[in-house]
């Protein structure tokens, strides 16, 4: 009985110590899954990396609560993607000294897009200029973002340069290998036109010269009859043979696009909170799936 009491007392102490340590650990906030992965690789457990956007929400258009922003404001480091990613950051006060824009050094490589066309009442139709935001889908830009994170965590003493440098070298090496693999796998497309369900892949397309035309379909959803009719017109216009989905849709959706002569590929753009931190393995798998689909189309 006495030993049980001792054990319980020891367990309570350990739980308290762990809780205290967890509270004392620095906190890093990220705005997308790619940055979460880079930060976790570079910090390797020396800080808690939090991606506060719920799993079923597009982080580009997340609307945080006041409590969310209070939590974010108190973080030790806030890693932004830049390139117009995450609209909420322009609607709150963030502590400037703890905010790092991971694409600040690569702004000259941004892709400018014409995003929304609409009109007001009898007013003229006009567009809102925007930037393509999914920078990390070009591995060379992903490396630049990882480098920015490495510099930020060292500058803020969240990890030592001695620890971070080898982690960055390893990550850089993996991203470079991914880039080389993609150049080989996607280098022989012979002009195979592709349609993406959403405009996510601009940087990937630029890096590997992929002819991608984009729709505005909801991620992973069954397209409407009208959307399928628009797709049919787009196929006639572009001669597309391949459909890139950002999330796995219902089987019926895959069957519908297949019946229009498209080969389907799911290529996760790694922005959303998937509940797991994955980048290199997911990108490798997506690139291989895309290359396999191209091969299938070429073989038809």
């Amino acid at each position: 009985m006495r030993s049980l009491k001792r054990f319980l007392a020891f367990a309570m102490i350990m739980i308290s110590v762990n809780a205290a340590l967890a509270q004392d650990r620095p906190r890093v906030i990220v705005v997308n899954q790619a940055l979460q992965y880079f930060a976790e690789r570079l910090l390797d457990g020396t800080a808690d990396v939090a991606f506060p956007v719920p799993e079923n929400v597009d982080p580009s258009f997340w609307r945080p609560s006041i409590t969310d922003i209070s939590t974010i404001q108190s973080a030790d480091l806030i890693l932004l993607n830049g390139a117009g990613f995450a609209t909420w950051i322009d609607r709150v006060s963030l502590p400037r000294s703890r905010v790092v824009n991971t694409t600040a050094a690569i702004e000259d490589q941004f892709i400018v897009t014409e995003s929304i066309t609409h009109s007001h009442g009898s007013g003229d139709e006009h567009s809102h200029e925007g930037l393509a935001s999914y920078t990390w889908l070009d591995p060379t830009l992903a490396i630049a973002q990882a480098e920015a994170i490495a510099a930020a965590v060292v500058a803020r003493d969240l990890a030592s340069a001695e620890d971070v440098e080898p982690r960055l070298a390893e990550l850089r090496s993996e991203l470079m290998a991914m880039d080389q693999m993609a150049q080989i796998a996607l280098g022989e497309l012979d002009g195979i036109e592709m349609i993406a369900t959403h405009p996510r892949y601009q940087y990937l397309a630029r890096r590997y010269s992929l002819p991608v035309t984009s729709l505005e379909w909801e991620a992973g959803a069954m397209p409407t009859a009208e959307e399928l009719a628009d797709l049919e017109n787009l196929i006639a216009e572009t001669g597309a043979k391949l459909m890139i989905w950002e999330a796995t849709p219902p089987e019926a959706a895959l069957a519908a696009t297949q019946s229009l002569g498209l080969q389907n590929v799911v290529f996760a753009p790694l922005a959303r909170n998937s509940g797991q931190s994955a980048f290199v393995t997911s990108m490798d798998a997506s690139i291989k799936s895309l290359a396999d689909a191209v091969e299938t189309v070429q073989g038809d």
Partner: protein
Amino acid sequence: MIRALAFASLVVAAPVGAAAHQLVVFASVDCEAVTIEAKFSNGRVTQKGDVRVLDGENNLLKTLQLESDGTALVPLDSVDHSGGLLIEVDTGHHDNYWIVTPEDIARKCGS
């Protein structure tokens, strides 16, 4: 060639020549009041618009109209701001918001 054209369609090298405007909302706190400013991203003043002030639980605390200079003032003693404030501005065609946290208010009040 087709590939080059397709890629070119993705990239607009020069700024788009169309009238670009989105509603920009900003709120600042000075310990006595929240000052709300709304304007379009092309610099044009937002002369009309509904302002809604909500608390941290999304309960509507107050509604008011933008002044002709695109501003609105919410005295802090007129609302329960203990859980922070969510400021929404809606012009009918555009809407946007700004979040004021309890910490934003406390910081301005020197506590």
